[in-house]
């Protein structure tokens, strides 16, 4: 399996993602600079967290139009799996690969804490190693993480089973109290129509080693390695 991580000016989770991928794959992913127009053949493209272009204009807006993104969009539409984490999710929505937008948190605060997520699907290459409905603990670290889309789009996402994760309580109950940022319908991550592009605000790459106080993220990278060759 070959993986590429796109590095934008202001990305800051690219190396964490590289460590997580290397631990799962047994070899290092390729780091691709945003200004490159060439992207190596990849079984997985990862857009990491951070603050690309200082979040100028809107989070992810500038990065979505980086030279390399044209190729990322082309590959994504051709079926190459793409995982966007945090700022990577914002970039995916701005690039039009995922619907909706990530807006300022309802609290107006930067939120940096662990949250509980309900795994809404385990039939995708990203989540095969999880149980359906499993409650996992991932960190979030963002100020623009409030998922917004109009009601029709939200209904369509739910109707097509495209919600990947929702913020929930320890019992798995999806409640207002468990929603850290005001996201519509507690949505923490969504898939594209084919389930090959996943955008999510929480950080699986930050929980892949017991020394980081948890390993709930490991299963995502294990799922990817198992299904991509």
């Amino acid at each position: 399996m070959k993986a590429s991580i796109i590095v934008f000016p202001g990305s800051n989770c690219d190396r964490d993602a590289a460590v997580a991928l290397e631990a799962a794959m047994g070899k290092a992913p390729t780091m691709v600079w945003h200004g490159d127009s060439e992207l190596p053949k990849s079984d997985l493209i990862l857009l990491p967290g951070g603050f690309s272009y200082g979040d100028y204009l809107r989070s992810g807006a500038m990065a979505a139009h980086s030279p390399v993104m044209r190729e990322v969009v082309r590959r994504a539409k051709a079926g190459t799996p793409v995982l966007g984490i945090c700022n990577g999710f914002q970039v995916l929505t701005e690039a039009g690969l995922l619907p909706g937008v990530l807006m300022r948190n309802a609290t107006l605060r930067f939120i940096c804490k662990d949250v509980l997520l309900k795994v809404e699907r385990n039939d995708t290459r990203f989540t095969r190693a999880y149980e359906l409905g499993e409650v996992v603990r991932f960190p979030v670290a963002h100020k623009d993480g409030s998922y917004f889309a109009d009601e029709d789009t939200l209904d369509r996402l739910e109707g097509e089973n495209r919600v990947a994760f929702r913020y929930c309580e320890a019992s798995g109950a999806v409640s207002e109290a468990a929603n850290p940022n005001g996201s519509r319908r507690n949505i923490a991550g969504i898939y594209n129509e084919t389930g090959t592009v996943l955008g999510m605000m929480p950080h699986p790459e930050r929980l892949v080693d017991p020394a980081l106080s948890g390993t709930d993220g490991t299963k995502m990278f294990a799922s990817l390695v198992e299904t991509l060759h």
Partner: protein
Amino acid sequence: MKARITITLKPGVLDPQGKAIEGALHALGFGAVDGVRQGKYIEVEVTESDPDKARAEIERMCEQLLANTIIENYAYELEAA
């Protein structure tokens, strides 16, 4: 020519920053304030001198980058340099 572009949140889109500004105005004693929405203002200079072509260019800029039309509306005025 210069374009003065105003980008505003669409009606119904939650604007927590506008709400916070409204709260601060109330705290300052501006009791008549009944709603605040925050937006963006951008000035773009273009070398194009044909107003119709300049308008078409500005609209493409707004659609492709300056506004996210899922949540934002844009409006602009053109003025000769």
